[in-house]
């Protein structure tokens, strides 16, 4: 299907630039920035022939799509697969893949479970766990910052906060990586992930049941809302599943991004050491700079004009969060990592009604780790070549060998 079936001279409507970029290819993952720029410069809306989808890479259009959820819906899937045409690979999410009014109800529940007031209660424990983790790593000196810190720290706090049993937690990261690969097109990453998904899915569905969730955790709190009628008992496990899908691997990539930034930009690391109260903003800026969640799709519910062009009903639109977060139309010196930047408004956690409901958990973890680093570590040096981890949605590293010296 060619949406601009017109010849270039046929009408007054400006033609949509067709690009050959495949944003789900290994070459793109290795270095997405030239392609991001090409898409931003080509126009406010582009068409990607590789997968027959529209794309938006400028801040203004990404923001506009996020903030018009009735036109750009989520209920037909936020991956390439259109749920109106294809059976979803798993039962759809009751929050991420839902539109108002259904979304409004489930969102209200997760907002309460993950509210600022709840974060206040978690804060001391998360801070202490980060200090213990960084003490252990300073004592070791040289290690791999991805498994040992970016994965190690969230694994030491998040499953407990959720109330998960100790056994089987090794399914968590593979399950999340599957979920985020599955948003992509039917390429090797997605197909392999789905082929290997059965044991991880079985584990996750089991852990979402009320009996398997410890009292006081996020999971038990979600189930408690089925007693008061905000959600049904059948909905509760699926909402717990949302936290298992979106709550762990994302922060692994987020913390990995922050450590990678601090290892690459020693001047910013020195500023953080001099003023550890910058830790929270330094994490936020890393989320803008690396955009651990790179992309999400929407589906048009009607013909719509966007950026001066008309997109028909039933089309998939791919939002490039990482490109919007470095759009020079919106950001000064977008390609520099600046821990004092006023970063409010970045779309690394999305925007609008679906904006990350777990962002406060992510920030608490990020702030805890960077505060502990700033207080306890003297220098961070890379002691080997970083290695990229490939995922259709998430951007981050497989391996980041580093050496810490004590402060």
């Amino acid at each position, binding site marked *: 299907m060619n949406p601009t079936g017109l010849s270039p001279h046929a009408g007054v409507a400006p033609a949509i630039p067709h690009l050959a970029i495949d944003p789900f290819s290994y070459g793109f993952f290795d270095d997405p920035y030239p392609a991001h720029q090409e898409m931003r410069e080509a126009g406010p809306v582009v068409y990607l022939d590789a997968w027959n989808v529209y794309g938006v890479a400028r801040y203004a259009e990404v923001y506009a799509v996020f903030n018009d959820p009735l036109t750009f819906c989520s209920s037909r899937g936020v991956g390439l697969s259109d749920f109106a045409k294809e059976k979803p690979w798993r039962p759809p999410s009751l929050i991420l893949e839902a539109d108002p009014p259904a979304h409004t109800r489930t969102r209200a529940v997760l907002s309460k479970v993950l509210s600022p*007031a709840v*974060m206040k209660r978690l804060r001391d424990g998360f801070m202490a766990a980060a200090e213990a983790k960084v003490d252990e790593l300073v004592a070791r000196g040289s290690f791999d910052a991805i498994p040992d810190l970016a994965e190690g720290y969230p694994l030491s706090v998040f499953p407990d906060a959720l109330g998960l049993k100790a056994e089987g937690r090794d399914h968590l990261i593979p399950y999340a990586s599957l979920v985020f690969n599955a948003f992509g097109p039917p390429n090797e990453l997605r197909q392999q992930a789905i082929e290997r998904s059965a044991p991880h899915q079985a584990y996750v569905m089991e852990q979402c049941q009320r009996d398997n969730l410890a009292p006081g955790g996020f999971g038990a709190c979600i189930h408690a809302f089925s007693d008061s009628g905000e959600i049904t008992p059948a909905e509760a496990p699926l909402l717990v599943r949302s936290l298992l899908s979106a709550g762990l691997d994302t922060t692994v990539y987020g913390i990995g991004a922050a450590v990678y930034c601090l290892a690459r930009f020693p001047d910013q690391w020195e500023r953080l050491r001099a003023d550890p109260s910058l830790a929270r903003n330094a994490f936020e800026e890393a989320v803008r700079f690396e955009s651990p969640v790179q992309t999400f799709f929407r589906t048009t519910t009607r013909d719509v004009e966007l950026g001066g062009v008309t997109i028909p009903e039933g089309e998939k639109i791919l939002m490039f969060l990482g490109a919007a977060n470095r759009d020079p139309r919106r950001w000064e010196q977008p390609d520099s990592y600046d821990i004092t930047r006023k970063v409010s408004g970045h779309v690394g956690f999305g925007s609008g*009604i679906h904006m990350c409901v777990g962002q406060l958990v992510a920030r608490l973890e990020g702030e805890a780790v960077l505060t502990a680093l700033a207080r306890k570590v003297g220098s961070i040096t890379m002691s080997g070549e970083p290695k990229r981890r490939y995922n259709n949605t998430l951007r981050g590293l497989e391996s980041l060998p580093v050496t810490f010296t004590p402060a």
Partner: protein
Amino acid sequence: MTTITFIHADNRSQTVEAEDGASIMLAALTHGVDGIVAECGGNAVCATCHVYVEEAWTTKLDPVTDDEDALLDGTAAERLPNSRLSCQIKVQPALAGLVVRIPDRQS
């Protein structure tokens, strides 16, 4: 444009001509008023845009919704009866002269 005054925790004050229709939070951010962090960009998730509205003005604002009320329970600085989230207050001519105080911390 509507005149809004921000008073910082150290009593320094800044008066800005804010664009009608935007939020008080956005007015602070676009006019370089520090101390309103707005981590969620105005999506009513973060409670880091907390302000204390000067007493004379509290009754002139739209009442606090249930969502805002729940968020205010999690502010970093103490919640007071005049606590509001600045992203939930829309700049409008009726608010000309509004004075808000910025707490000493947001997270």
